[in-house]
C-alpha cells in the first residue's frame, strides 16, 4: 500500500515536471527571422497550400511552414496565444470567432499594406467575406482566402435500385421530399432517402430558411426572422424532409456523412469543403452533385430570384499583431490572395477562391466527378453564413434540446416545429442581447 502511494506521488512529481518542460518547449517555438509559422486546421488543404507557399518562398527567400492543428485545438491554441503566449505568424480566421480577435487588436491591421499593394483590390473579393473581416471603424484584419457553397449530393446506385428519377436543377424541396419518401418507403426503412442533422445548418436547413424569405441573422447582425411566418414555412418544409429521412438518433450516432458513404442514405446536402472526402471515398463512382433544390414560394413553377439560396462562407488569411516579421507575413498573405495564388488554389482543387472569377478551374480539379454545381450555385442567390459576435452560443443552442432537437426527434408533430421556431427566435435574441 505504502509503496504504491509513494510510487504515485513520485509519478505525480514526474508528470508535473514533464508538464513544466513541455510548456516551455511549445513556448519557445516562435518564429525565427527566416521562417514564418503558418497554422491551418484542414489537413486536406495542407499539401496544396504548401505548394503555393513554396512558390512565394522562391521570390521572398523566407520559408513558410504550414502546420495543421485540428479544429478544436486550433482555437484553444490561438486563444492561449492571444492571451499572452506566442501566436503563429500567419493563420486562418473563421466567422465563428474572428469578431473577438478583431475587437481585441490581436490581429495585424492590414489597411496600410493593402493600400500600398498593387496585387490586392478589395473590390475583387466577395463582399460578405470582406465585410466580415472589416471592423466597424474600417480597419481590415484579414484577406479573403476562399469561399464555399452548398450542393446536393446523391448516390445514383440507390436511385437506380428503387427506380427514382435523379435530382435535376429544377428540383424544388418538395421534389426532394417526394424522392426521399419513395426511397425510404421503397426500402422499408433499410435505406433512408435523405439525412440531415440539426448540426447541418450552414450545409443544410439554413438554406431552406433563406429560400422561403426568412433570415437566421439579419443584415445588420442584430436580430433574426426565424420565428416569422416565412421562417415557420421553411422549417415546416424541413420537418417534412426529415420525416422521410434518417431518424435523429441515427444521425447523431453515425453522422450523415458516414450514413451516406456506407450507402445507407441516398441524399445529403454538403459544402464544397467536403468534396475531397467524397471524391476519395470507396463508392465515389456512384456519387453525383446537383444544384440545391429551391422553394417555389410564388408557385409559378420556375425558380425566380430569391427562391434558391446557397450559404457561403469564407476563411481569411490573417497575421498576428505580435509577429516579429509583419512585412513578410503580409507578403505571404498577399501572395495567397493575389490573382495568381487564388487561381493556383482553385486549380489545385484546394478550394474555390475568395476572389471573384477565379473558381472555374476548380470544377476541373476532380477528374471523374462533376462538381460544377458548387460554381453554378453562384449564379443564383448567396447569403453569407449567419454570424454575430459570439456565434457559437446561439448556434449550439439551436442544435440542442430546447432548440430544434425536439422537433427533429419527433418530426411527425408539426406543432412542435412551430414551437421550436419561436424558441429559436428567443434563443438568438437572448444571445445577441448578452453579447
Amino acid at each position, binding site marked *: *500500500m505504502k*509503496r*504504491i502511494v509513494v510510487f504515485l506521488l513520485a509519478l505525480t*512529481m514526474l508528470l*508535473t*515536471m514533464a*508538464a*513544466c518542460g513541455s510548456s516551455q518547449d511549445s513556448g519557445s517555438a516562435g518564429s525565427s527571422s527566416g521562417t514564418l509559422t503558418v497554422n491551418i486546421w484542414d489537413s486536406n488543404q495542407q499539401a496544396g497550400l504548401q505548394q503555393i507557399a513554396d512558390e512565394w518562398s522562391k521570390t521572398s527567400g523566407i520559408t513558410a511552414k504550414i502546420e495543421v492543428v485540428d479544429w478544436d485545438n486550433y482555437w*484553444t491554441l490561438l*486563444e492561449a496565444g*492571444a*492571451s*499572452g503566449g506566442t501566436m503563429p505568424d500567419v493563420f486562418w480566421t473563421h466567422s465563428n470567432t474572428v469578431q*473577438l480577435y478583431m*475587437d*481585441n487588436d*490581436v490581429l495585424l491591421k492590414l489597411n496600410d499594406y493593402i493600400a500600398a499593394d498593387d496585387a490586392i483590390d478589395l473590390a475583387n473579393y466577395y463582399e460578405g467575406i470582406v465585410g466580415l473581416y472589416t471592423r466597424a471603424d474600417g480597419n481590415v484584419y484579414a484577406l479573403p482566402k476562399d469561399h464555399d457553397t452548398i450542393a446536393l449530393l446523391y448516390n445514383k446506385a440507390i436511385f437506380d435500385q428503387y427506380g427514382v428519377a435523379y435530382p435535376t436543377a429544377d428540383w424544388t424541396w418538395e421534389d426532394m421530399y417526394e424522392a426521399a419518401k419513395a426511397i425510404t418507403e421503397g426500402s422499408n426503412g433499410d435505406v433512408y432517402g435523405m439525412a440531415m*442533422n*440539426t*448540426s447541418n445548418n450552414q450545409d443544410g436547413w439554413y438554406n431552406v430558411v433563406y429560400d422561403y424569405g426568412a433570415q437566421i441573422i439579419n443584415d445588420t447582425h442584430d436580430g433574426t426572422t426565424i420565428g416569422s411566418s416565412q421562417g415557420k414555412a421553411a422549417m415546416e418544409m424541413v420537418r417534412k424532409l426529415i420525416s422521410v429521412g434518417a431518424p*435523429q*438518433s*441515427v*444521425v*447523431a*450516432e*453515425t*453522422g450523415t456523412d458516414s450514413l451516406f458513404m*456506407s450507402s*445507407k442514405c441516398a441524399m445529403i446536402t454538403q459544402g464544397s469543403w467536403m468534396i475531397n472526402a467524397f471524391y476519395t471515398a470507396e463508392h465515389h463512382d456512384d456519387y453525383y452533385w446537383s444544384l440545391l433544390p429551391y422553394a417555389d414560394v410564388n408557385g409559378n413553377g420556375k425558380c425566380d430570384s430569391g427562391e434558391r439560396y446557397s450559404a457561403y462562407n469564407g476563411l481569411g488569411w490573417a497575421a498576428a499583431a505580435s509577429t516579429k516579421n509583419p512585412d513578410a507575413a503580409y507578403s505571404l498573405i498577399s501572395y495567397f490572395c493575389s490573382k495568381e495564388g487564388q487561381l493556383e488554389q482553385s486549380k489545385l482543387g484546394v478550394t474555390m477562391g475568395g476572389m471573384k472569377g477565379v473558381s472555374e478551374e476548380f470544377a476541373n480539379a476532380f477528374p471523374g466527378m462533376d462538381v460544377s454545381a458548387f460554381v453554378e450555385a453562384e449564379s443564383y442567390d448567396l447569403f453569407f453564413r449567419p454570424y454575430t459576435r*459570439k456565434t*457559437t*452560443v446561439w448556434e*449550439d443552442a439551436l*442544435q*440542442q*434540446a430546447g432548440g430544434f*432537437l425536439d422537433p*427533429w*426527434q419527433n418530426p411527425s408533430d408539426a406543432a412542435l416545429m412551430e414551437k421550436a421556431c419561436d424558441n429559436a427566435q428567443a434563443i438568438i435574441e437572448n444571445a445577441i442581447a448578452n453579447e
Partner: protein
Amino acid sequence: MKASAKKRSAAAKNEARWAWAFIAPTMLGLIILNFYPVINTVYQSFCKTGDFGRGNTFVGLANYAAAFSAGETWHSIWNTVKYALIEVPFGVCIALILAVFLNKKLKGTSAFRTIFFLPMVCAPAAVAMVWKWLYNQQFGLLNNIFHSNVAWISDPHIAWISIGVIGVWSVIGYNMVLFISGLQEIPGDYYEAAAIDGATGIRQFFHITVPLLSPTTFFIVQTRVIGALTVFDLMFMVMDKTNVALQNTQSIVYLFYTYAFTNGNKGYGATLVVILVLFIMLVTVIMQRAEKKLVFYN
C-alpha cells in the same frame, strides 16, 4: 554546551537548505501550475470575464446566482452523481473479486493481471471512440451480437448506464492492482487458522479479507469518487452534441467545458468548477467521517 547546540543548528540549517533545494522544482511546479490557477479560477468566478483574459469586471455573486437558479446545473450534478453511483460500487466490487482470484497461486495470473490492467494503459479518448462504435445502433457490435435494436447511447433512459459501463471497464484494472497489493499485506496465518477451524472460502472472504482490506478499499473508494465526480472525457467523446440523451448524461465538468471553452464565458465556467469543488469537499468530509466507523485498522 552552547557551542555544540549552535553547531547542530548550523548543520540543521544546512540540511534544511538542501531540503528546500530538493523540493523547489516540485513546489515551483505546484505553485505555478496548480495554486496560481486555483486562486485565479476562484477570482474569475466572481467576474464577468473579458476576451483573452483582459478586462474582467467584478460582478460579485451574479454568476453563482445564475448557476444555482439554472436547472441544467442541478441536472448535470445529478448526472455526475448517477455516473459515480455506477462506476464506484461496480468498479470496486468487480475489481475486488478479480483481485482475490488473481492473488491465488495459479498458472497465468500475471497474464490475466496484464489483461485486466490494459484499459488503464489505453488513451481514454481512444477507449471512448471504440465503445462509441460498439454501442452504435446501426452498425455496432453489441446490437449485432444480440440481434437487438437498442439505442445504447441515444435513449435517455439507457445512455447514462452505457456511459457508466465504460467507466467501470476502464477503472477495474487500476482498482484491481491496488487490491492485490492490499491482499498481499494480509498475513497468511489468518487464512490457515480459519481453514483449520473449518471456515469456507466465502466465510474467509467476508470475515478476513473484507475487514482487513478495508483501508485499501477506503482509499480506492475515496479516490474513485473524486475521479468519477470530475468525469468529462467519456461524455465528450461518446455523446454527439446533437444526441437526444446528452442532457441526461452531461456531467458538471462537461457543462463547464461548454460554457468556458465553447461559449467563451470563462467566468461562468469558473463558477461551475468552484461549485463542483465545494461539492467534492462536502462528499469527502462525509466519507472521512464514515471512515472512523467503517474502516478497520489493526
